[in-house]
């Protein structure tokens, strides 16, 4: 499975996505991401293990992010590889969901107290 959801201390949820998020990969993460969007409020999405992602994968992340933020929650992206980061920045998503390269900083940014 290309996605693992870990609930950390302090109400933080870390979502770790891995592998190729192509059309088949996006179908695999769609349902888990929508569950995260519906049930979690403070979320770090770790993209460091994603080798490839295009607009379907991005769509899944944006939809989940929208759901989280609509409840007053916070979401951050962690360490995308350069090719994936280019897709994110070209579409302007980084202006809506901040990208962090340091896990502690990402967790601090989404923590309920921040």
């Amino acid at each position: 499975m290309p996605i693992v959801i870990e609930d950390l201390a302090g109400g933080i949820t870390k979502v770790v996505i891995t592998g190729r998020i192509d059309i088949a990969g996006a179908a695999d993460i769609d349902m888990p991401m929508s569950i995260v969007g519906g049930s979690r409020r403070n979320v770090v999405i770790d993209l460091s293990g994603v080798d490839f992602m295009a607009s379907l994968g991005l769509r899944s992340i944006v939809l989940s992010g929208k759901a989280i933020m609509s409840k007053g929650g916070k979401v951050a992206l962690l360490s995308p590889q350069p090719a994936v980061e280019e897709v994110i920045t070209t579409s302007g998503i980084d202006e809506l969901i901040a990208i962090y390269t340091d896990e502690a900083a990402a967790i601090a940014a989404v923590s309920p107290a921040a």
Partner: protein
Amino acid sequence: MRRSALPPDSLMSAPGAAPEILRITNAIADLSRLYPWFEDAAAKLGLPKPLVQKMQVVAEEAVMNVAMHAYAPGSEDKIEVRLSASQAIAELVVEDCGPAFDPLAVTEQPRPASLAEAKVGGLGLNLLKRFCPDISYARLNGRNQLRLRFPLESPAAHV
């Protein structure tokens, strides 16, 4: 009436040898074949890996646009994807027989000010236009033809 033959101009302007061709419907099982086919076709044409990644982002966007917006779920209509390369250019062509749609005529979506305002659909077209330097659209024989060209860097370009 639909013509199954390639439109005449593609024979004139497709670079290089015979293109690699994929014909799929918008069923998920069919759409999932895009990437394995692309990897295989790009390897046969000897395209460099960073370019292949970029072309795959564009191919997914162009094909999913047709799959989600031009054809109804369960449609038997085909999306045709062709990949070819000459010494200077790699070319991806996506054809469908849906209603006329020129993505180049769509005004680029402004960057959304907040995630709540972000419209998921428009962002993909921005991505397409920014990732591909040379896009042309034609309506030929009742088909939409999107032609996406990418320059191939020759070794001489680095000297």
